[in-house]
């Protein structure tokens, strides 16, 4: 279930576009991925990304457990390559998720 180094780097690049350079000091882990996915899902404006994951999100279930490795890799690569586009679709969701993502990245 753990993210590969390439996946961590893809996620880091996207989150740095959203939250700024402090992301470079973060510990990117499964919890950060879970909160990021929930942020994308809740925004309801990144539908092309969320549609990569056919199964609806279940409350209480960690996305990293049900998203296949291949879909996860594709999603993170798209996030990285189109970070300027996708950061605009999470504007208010990013504000709502900010503390959760920071805390996950700090191992809290």
């Amino acid at each position: 279930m753990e993210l590969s180094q390439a996946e961590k780097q893809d996620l880091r690049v996207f989150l740095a576009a959203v939250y700024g350079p402090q992301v470079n000091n973060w510990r990117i882990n499964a919890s950060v991925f879970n909160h990021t996915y929930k942020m994308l899902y809740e925004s309801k404006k990144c539908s092309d990304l969320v549609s990569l994951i056919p199964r609806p999100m279940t409350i209480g279930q960690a996305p990293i457990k049900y998203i296949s490795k291949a879909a996860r890799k594709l999603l993170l690569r798209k996030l990285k390559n189109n970070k300027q586009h996708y950061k605009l679709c999470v504007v208010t969701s990013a504000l709502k998720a900010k503390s959760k993502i920071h805390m996950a990245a700090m191992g809290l």
Partner: protein
Amino acid sequence: MKSILFIVISLFFINSPADLKANELIISSEIAIKHLPALQIAHSGELVIFKYKNWSYTHEVVSPENLIVSVDLTGFEHQFIKSVFEKKIRGELPNWMGLLAEDFSNKILNKNGSYQKINIGNSIVYGTYSKEEQQGFIFILEERSIHKLDILGAYKDYTALTNNIIKRD
């Protein structure tokens, strides 16, 4: 013997009240937040994080350039935050900013749109809590700055924190 007794008694009085006394997070010259000592305190970017056994909260001074990704709210930040809670104020904002406030409002306010609004000294405090998400937000609007508190925990933790925002002497 007397001097040893004096030292022991002094140590008792020095140590015990400090352990029991609530701490204060001073956020401005006017406002402080009383809270019990946290298990962990962390600093990440603009956030100061206070972690307790079953809940946590973060504090940040709102930067109008960075509050919303890719949007500069400079000059409108107070009106923007007010309009997140009070629909009628959205009409005073540029249309796109009103829509942004509505979008954020829909994400943090419950279905009834209920929120708290209190005055502390010259500051206005807006707060909202979602039992479903176990998350609450408090915005403290001072004349020249805005503070954001994000509470991750039970409703009782949210209300306790709200009640412990105080005007400094």
